[in-house]
């Protein structure tokens, strides 16, 4: 198990390979569909983004509400491909990488290679478990979007797998065949 800190160091990132199991600690930001749409509108209008994306990780996640005394509710990844149209622009601005689930488009893979960034997969549907890795959560923008607001999270040992590394090697689509197969 490899431990890395966020925001990420570009040299450290180059040591990561598709398939590596990683524990992330440090600061990450959440954004999903609606927040990406707003950030894209801001970029179009040449406005500043709600946070400096340089070397940061965006976690595609919209949590369930926290109970009194709880830091955050259930907090697992959402499907990353819905953010594909927005991702290359953010990577060009220096975004370090993304955490989500599922395949990315070839445009995103090319952009990951071009910008030497990384895409991590967290386990979809393990929101209760993943919430335990979150030490603090603060809404920093788009509060009106509710669950889709941008949150700054402090995480400790968030378990992920490198799904696409900086060279564009990707785990999805290269899945190992099942071992009990006789018919195929």
């Amino acid at each position, binding site marked *: 198990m490899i431990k890395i800190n966020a925001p990420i160091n570009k040299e450290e990132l180059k040591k990561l390979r598709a398939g590596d199991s990683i524990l992330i600690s440090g600061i990450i930001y959440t954004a999903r569909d609606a927040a990406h749409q707003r950030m894209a509108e801001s970029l179009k209008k040449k406005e500043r983004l709600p946070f400096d994306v340089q070397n940061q990780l965006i976690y595609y996640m919209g949590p369930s509400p926290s109970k009194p005394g709880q830091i955050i509710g259930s907090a697992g990844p959402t499907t990353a491909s819905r953010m594909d149209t927005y991702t290359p622009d953010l990577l060009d601005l220096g975004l370090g990488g993304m955490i989500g689930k599922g395949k990315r488009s070839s445009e995103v893979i090319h952009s990951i290679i071009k910008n030497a960034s990384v895409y991590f*997969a967290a*386990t979809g549907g*393990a929101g209760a478990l993943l919430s335990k890795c979150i030490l603090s959560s603060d809404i920093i923008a788009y509060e009106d979007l509710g669950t889709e607001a941008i949150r700054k999270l402090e995480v400790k040992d968030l378990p992920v797998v490198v799904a696409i590394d900086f060279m564009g090697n990707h785990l999805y689509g290269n899945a190992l065949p099942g071992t009990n197969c006789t018919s195929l």
Partner: protein
Amino acid sequence: MIRKIHTLEITKNIKEMCIEANYYLSADMKDAIQQASQKETTTLGKNVMQQLQKNLIIAADEKIPICQDTGMAVVFLDIGQGVHIQGDSLENAINEGIRRGYEEGYLRKSIVHDPLIRKNTKDNTPAVIHSKIVAGNTLKITVAPKGFGSENISRIFMLKPSDGKEGVIKSVLQTIQDAGANACPPIVVGIGIGGTFEKCAIMAKEALLRNLKEHSDIPYIAEMEQDLLEQINCLGIGPGGLGGNTTALAVNINTYPTHIAGLPVGINICCHVNRHVTRIL
């Protein structure tokens, strides 16, 4: 004999069922995940299966939703002919139960009021309601919160009669192959074969509610369920889509008579958080 059921009772039950469904999986689902975990052979796949088991324990112990996507509430009603529903309108009573359940259970509100304008209703209403009038004097309610990672990759195929069983199998495998990790495998596959365009879709959704330890009453369909499960698990998608032999936990098929010219096939995929709670009033 006419039996009276007040809508206040329906609201209260729906509220409790929303919360229960989102914190605890049914015993058959938990067993299926545990069994698959033991059989998984890849390292990454095993890790994911262990995470899923830990996740279920944390969710139940600490009353945290199993998944942050607490779904769109799908409600099935079997309304006995001998039941007289009193009070508010049934639809209002159901939506009030959803509203309270999602608020009191700290469940995520994921519903937008209009599919294109997309403003959140902030209380997870309305539910999608499917009701049937049946014999008897009880009201059977099932609440099945449906996550959209897996809903988004579900499909309907209007096949030709000549496509036959092979065509159905090909459509199912293609759907699951295309879905890959997005469906949050290991998945449960609900399939409706026959009927009309909408009937096959509703049958597919109902198939997700069936206990995973039970098979179709029709011998050749039960066999097809088993064959399909094996073929799906040969796709190699694996837990979390990271590779492995656990892509699906079960395949449940429902069938219905259809038209001489058609072979509708609905394929509704559910992630490993296949939530449903049933109560009989």
